């Protein structure tokens, strides 16, 4: 890659032996079996509390690298909390605490000497409501993560702007007005800009919290196409309320209910032949 944030370089060196050929390994074209693919994130016995509220209870699962993992479940089941615990964003809630372990390519992201800031550079996030920074242009929004982390090489930033916007399938629509305000874009374009912004810091994992739920069907289809494209290079975890969406774009699906992981398997299995009654009831629309 052309540019690295200094801290990220060391991280990637550290994880190099545990992540053989993440950048060089051939593209996976079909769904790999859970056992055969590289594991990006290992979650072991994760519990999250907000004050006395036990939001997640003993969740364990492996998130596969370069695949899409969908998190489904009814409102309040802990989906978003699970997603946010993967880049320590849940810590923004003052009374949050967690037990258990989360490893990112083998490295404990909750180890005492690991700063949340470093974790978040490696695990990017896209939110439900698109939130490009209103005071910045389209180009500045893309590069903000690097600029505010000390990268000021104009040529490199320009190159990265194009690369990230191309990856987010937005380049052709905005290349002639990179310095226009970000808020001049449509809602769907703004969300793809947020994806480009997250990609620009070159994360290894991309978390998406209902990224298309506020968009119209055409914009949603574009985001879904984009996710299918991005999984060739990134590990994607997506929370969605839309089960058709989970079925369309994900290889693996985790079903959460009342703070517990009920079932985690390949998406095909979850939607055609789930092992648990609760999962079947949910995916067939009998509750939730």
């Amino acid at each position: 890659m052309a540019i690295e944030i200094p801290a990220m370089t060391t991280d990637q060196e550290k994880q190099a032996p545990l992540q053989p050929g993440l950048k060089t390994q051939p593209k996976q074209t079909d769904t790999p079996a859970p056992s055969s693919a590289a594991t990006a994130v290992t979650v072991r016995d994760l519990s999250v509390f907000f004050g006395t509220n036990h939001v997640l209870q003993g969740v364990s699962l492996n998130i596969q690298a370069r695949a899409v993992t969908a998190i489904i479940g009814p409102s309040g089941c802990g989906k978003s909390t699970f997603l946010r615990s993967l880049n320590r964003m849940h810590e923004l809630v003052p009374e949050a605490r967690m037990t258990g372990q989360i490893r990112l390519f083998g490295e404990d992201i909750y180890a005492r000497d690991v700063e949340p800031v470093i974790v978040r550079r490696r695990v990017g996030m896209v939110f439900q409501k698109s939130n490009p920074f209103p005071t910045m242009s389209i180009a500045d929004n893309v590069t903000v993560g690097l600029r505010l982390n000390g990268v000021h090489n104009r040529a490199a930033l320009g190159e990265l702007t194009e690369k990230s916007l191309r990856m987010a399938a937005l380049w052709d629509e905005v290349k002639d007005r990179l310095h226009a305000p970000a808020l001049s874009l449509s809602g769907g374009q703004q969300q793809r800009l947020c994806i480009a912004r997250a990609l620009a810091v070159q994360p290894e994992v991309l978390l998406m919290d209902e990224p298309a739920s506020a968009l119209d069907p055409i914009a949603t289809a574009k985001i879904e196409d984009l996710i299918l494209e991005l999984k060739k290079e990134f590990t994607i975890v997506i929370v969605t309320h839309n089960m058709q969406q989970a079925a369309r774009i994900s290889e693996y699906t985790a079903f959460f209910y009342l703070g517990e992981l009920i079932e985690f398997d390949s998406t095909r299995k979850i939607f055609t032949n789930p092992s648990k009654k609760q999962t079947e009831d949910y995916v067939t629309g009998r509750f939730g």
Partner: protein
Amino acid sequence: MAPTNHQWRKLKNLLVQSVTCACALLVIAPLALVFFHLARSGVGSVNLDFFTHLPKPVGEVGGGMANAIVGTFVLLGVAALIGVPVGVLGGVFLSEYGSSKLNWWIRFAADILNGVPSIIWGIVVYALVVMPMKTFSAWAGGTVLGLIMIPLIMRTTEEVLLLVPNGYREAALALGITQWRMIVQIVVRTALKGIITGILLALARVSGETAPLLFTAFGNRFWNHNLSDPIATLPLQIFSYAISPYDEWHRQAWAGALVLLLLITAINVSVRLLTRDRFSRHGH
């Protein structure tokens, strides 16, 4: 019976509408009266000399308030030096860092300070600055105005920062941006117009203060060449001219009042211009 009932209702509605409208218009009336009266009494003495000359001794016609006009801006500068950094940074703390319990006490204190009569600020600064320095001074006057500005700016800064949607903070943190950079480059930048508005309104508010300056800045009939010496300001000059027995000084006081009012109006108009597109989307 039904039609009369209906007409009676319409009449009642009209009545209430006219009474509330009249009360609302009463807000405009005093402003119009003040402007009209000041313009009529003061405009005759507002000329180039008024802006460029020192006051003339008693008995001589003419002269101006150049020293008081400059002094007003000097004091506002000193006040901003104290009030802006403390107020803005305090507001940032309230909005971005503080715990809810501590914040409650700070807000409570700021609200009480906002209600403290300005003359009490004057007494405090007299004891803290004037007595140790053994002289009235621009420093003391600026300190009073700065202290009055702190709680005003702190609360408005906090309020406009709280208006910045949390999504921006989360987006910045999720990019691995540190909290202080997020606050300075994203949150404060997004709310900058609102913060500047708060600062300007605080400046407008203190630019007319008179009472606390009587025994801090004290006033001066000549140029101030040293911030450790007494300094003239428009409100002080108006005060001392208005209570004098001389017609010429009365005319000067009217002129000073008109200039002061125009100055404050100018600040308010610039606030309006600044906030005009605050909520509109950029670039359309």
